[in-house]
């Protein structure tokens, strides 16, 4: 999976958990919570959906890596690769 594909996987999750948000123009380097109304319950859901859909575990200590789309791509792409994706 490329970094862009990883970003798309995260965007797909956000589109499902927050269908009332406009995700078409999200900036990669700005914190997601500064561009959308996402609270801690929504971040829990991003983590839970990564596990459910992609078998990817994000330990709580690593949650800061999910702050922006760019950091998601950096952090998650090797995890996808490790699973052969």
């Amino acid at each position: 999976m490329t970094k862009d594909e990883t970003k798309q996987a995260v965007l797909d999750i956000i589109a499902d958990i927050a269908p009332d948000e406009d995700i078409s123009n999200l900036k990669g380097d700005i914190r997601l919570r500064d561009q959308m109304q996402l609270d801690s319950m929504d971040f829990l859901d991003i983590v839970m959906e990564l596990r459910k859909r992609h078998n990817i575990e994000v330990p709580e200590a690593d949650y800061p890596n999910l702050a922006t789309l760019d950091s998601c791509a950096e952090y998650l792409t090797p995890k996808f690769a490790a699973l052969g994706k």
Partner: protein
Amino acid sequence: MNTAHHYDVAIIGAGMAGLAAGIRLAHFGKKVCIFERHNAVGGLNSFYSIDGRKYDVGLHAMTNFVRPGVKGTPLGKLLRQLRIDRDEFALCEQKRSRIAFGPRGETSLTFTNDFTVFESEVAAKFPSQIDGFRRLIALIKTYDDVSLGAVPESARAVVRRHVTDPLLEDMLFCPVMYYGSATEHDMEFGQFVIMFKALFLEGFARPFDGVRVILRVLLEKYRETGGERRMKCGVQKIISREGRASALLLDDGSEVTATHVISTIGAPETERLLPGSSLSALSSQPAPSGALSYCETITVLDRQPAALGWGEDTIVFFNDSEKFTYAASEQQVDIRSGVICLPNNFDFGPGRELPEGLFRCTCLASYDQWAPLPEDVYRADKTRWYADIQRSALRFLPPLPSPATLAAATIATDMFTPRTITRFTGHAGGAIYGSPVKLRDGRTALSNLYLAGTDQGFLGIVGAMLSGISMANFHVLQPKT
């Protein structure tokens, strides 16, 4: 041992909280079962049929309504967490509601889902109070009402710092208390803030077909996510071992085990399933039952309320006395104050109206005086109080051409009492809003038993669903640190 079944999570009660918790947990792959003693889901917010006619119980209006695009509110959180599209609830907004005080409702404050209407009403009727009222609103808007560790404070004391006219104070408390307070006379300020936002800063709405639309959506989601439920099969005992709920003894005599147990049936009601032990982890005192119960009259009309001149009001909160008393009723029913609901008066869209007129009145009532009555006396008293409640409420609606008008338009009636509430919901003392003591973090004396719903302390039907969601997240889904 016949413990054939093990669940990741067993949920006691298929009301709003139990269904919402179940959806969350099943969505994330937990093996979940909801155990419900009654044959219908919904708990305190359900419906029933008599003579082919469906009646809602509980729901006058769904509070917490916000329009699409308003973010960061309980309704939005609920929809996101349960993956529900807001169109599925198809909510229709109220027309307007009123708080009417005085023997004939002489002082009246109108409000709608647009808060500026309420604010200008307060400015017009209580000009000396408007600055304080605005300060109170600013405080409410910034108050952290979802903190699980807030220090309890008297709502009356906080409100009096800003609102000095006792009439306005009582008029603000009346709707907030009637729609959610389990405590008499006063309430905790955090609870007041939650209800004030739900009623006034957010608003009222309902699906065209009432509460059963919401229940249908929840049930469908729960089924899709793979959750199980057992109806007409309550839990008669929680078997504890070494500080844990080790098994549940069901009404049919079988046992199941579960890694986690979420009880939504109330604190004193859960405690009764635990013989010999106290529910609260913090106190050895038994969980107190609530003292506040209600009667409601339901009158079915052969015409829309508008045909009687009652086309404007959705909900009317009324009080005829100098002071508003929110306390356990000293008589069978306290008809001095109450709530009128005209479910036809939501904006269902052009040309769309409920097939029959409905006129509902709710008053405080005494469980202790209704519960022990022999059946014939109970029936006779219902008839008598039905007339008294209706007569009291009529003082606060536009006058009818003649006293016989309403009787001529009436095609069916029903009434519930505190005894009905206990019979169908299992709530001790007919206490719809549960125990005055709330366990905000849901923890109990047993490490894997958590409380959600009414006695966890989020109020209203949106609150009940959020309670189920929060407790499922907090105790089961979130990683433990």
